[in-house]
């Protein structure tokens, strides 16, 4: 099988991380092409259920990128994200899925370089962890 090319899903919030991704683009910061971004209004709108669905059906990694604490356009949205996703990660671990396949991070609208760094890091982490075992395991 050719070299493992992970398929990764990312949720970016309209006000900060999506704008940070745009700035990375405007600044032509090169990064691996494995991450597919879905735009949401706030990281707090991302249901952990989406991550469970994606990971249990073979997606190799899920990334949720919100605003830094204190920057949220909706005041306390990212506080809830920060509270929910560690629980989701632990549940993955309990069931035996490598919890590093689900990562939560903060990127501001001016951090093109941080976006590049998070994407590059996450893709290399997932390459190290390897393909999602659930891809072959048809339940």
């Amino acid at each position, binding site marked *: 099988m050719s070299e493992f090319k992970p398929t990764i899903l990312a949720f970016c919030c309209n006000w*900060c991380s999506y*704008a940070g991704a745009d*700035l990375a683009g*405007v*600044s032509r910061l090169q990064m691996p092409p494995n991450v597919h971004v879905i735009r949401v209004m706030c990281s707090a709108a991302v249901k952990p259920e989406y991550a469970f669905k994606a990971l249990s059906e073979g997606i190799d990694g899920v990334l949720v990128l919100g605003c830094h604490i*204190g*920057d949220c356009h909706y005041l306390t949205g990212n506080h809830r994200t920060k509270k929910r996703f560690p629980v989701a990660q632990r549940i993955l671990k309990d069931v035996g899925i490598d919890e590093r396949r689900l990562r939560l991070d903060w990127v*501001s*609208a*001016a*951090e*093109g*370089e941080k976006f590049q760094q998070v994407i590059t890091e996450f893709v290399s982490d997932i390459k190290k962890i390897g393909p999602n075992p659930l891809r072959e395991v048809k339940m």
Partner: protein
Amino acid sequence: MTDRVVVVGGGIAGIQAALDLGDMGFEVHLVEKSPSIGGHMAQLDKTFPTNDCSLCILSPKMIMCADHERIKLHTYSEIDGISGKFPNFKVRIREKARYVDITRCTGCGDCAAKCPVKVPSEYEESLTNRKAIYLPFPQAVPRKVTIDGAHCRMITQKKCGVCKKVCQAGAIDYDQKDKIVDIDASAVVIATGYDQMNVSLLPQFGFGIAKDVVTSLQFERILSASGPTGGHLVRPSDGTEPKTLAFIQCVGSRDAKTHVYCSSVCCMYATKESILAGEHAPNIKTTIFYMDMRAVGKNFQEFVQRAKKSYGVRYVQSRPAKLQPAKDGKGVLINYEKKGTGGEVAQDEFDMAVLCPALEPSKSASKFAESTGLKLDSDGFFMTPDLQHPVDSTSKGIVVCGFASTPMDIPDAVTQASSAAARVAEMISGGGC
């Protein structure tokens, strides 16, 4: 009496006044002399006291301004003159030739990549160069390129023409001429903001003599992730990370020889820049030489305490007399009077020094002052004598907001912009006094 208003100056105050007036139903013409709106705030990395990223909070307003159906942007344009009296002003706007058809240009930047001419970039405070055809900064609004006629080889010597060849949108037009647009407006809002004083007029501070003495706006660009150093805090002389950093307050301010007034914002942005320096270079030792630490706004004192406690910034109450290059042109030697020693002068060496220059009202405004009866005070600010109407100028129907009337920080400038909108609304619709 039309409901048309001209706003002069596309900085944060001009943008806010235009947005409020547009939302109130007035037709607004926003005139900005540089190729993009945004003003000095667009150059800032972060803003005090929250360390919000400046462009993150500014660019949504810039986009709203450009997208507003009742606001017409005139960028790269100047006011040739204002005639008439309230409520019938005739404002002559000169849209300087950009040599680019902005209906076709998509801001893709291919031309700039190929243009051979390098010019010191105003946006980057001359720390790096831009091309003769350029987009001032990635988030510029409008996102269109401009040909700087004074440096473009095609305009000056009819040689080159590379950008026209490369431009796939066919937007380059070398024969474009200045365009005069006459607007009859019921009111004019002046929001021309400030410019940093030319600190080379004060050689004792070493600007232009010591390579590692920079202005605060240059330091903002050095700190900015989209700046010339990519956000890495390095000093101009040898590109190394400074271990010791000094801020010099009141350079040209509170000084009878140059400007008596206090520029109001330097204490706070110096504190902010010292905190940011601490974040970029965690073990940096920063000293701020100040006279009075004027932290008077919301959460400002806590901001200064945070600089002292979490970032170890040293505040020295003294006014340095001389800055000169240390050994072989690198670093800075600062002579300053040590407090409590009865006038003894100390000399410390710093890897880098940041000057906080006096902020002067932008010169462009004073051009049309006389024709409109607008009086300026002894420092060049527009006089706003009536306490009950703090944004009214000396000429009825013309209001002034932001730094153009007196030194103030961004929240006060934004507040005054809305006050200007209220006064205009009062004068035009309410038959105000």
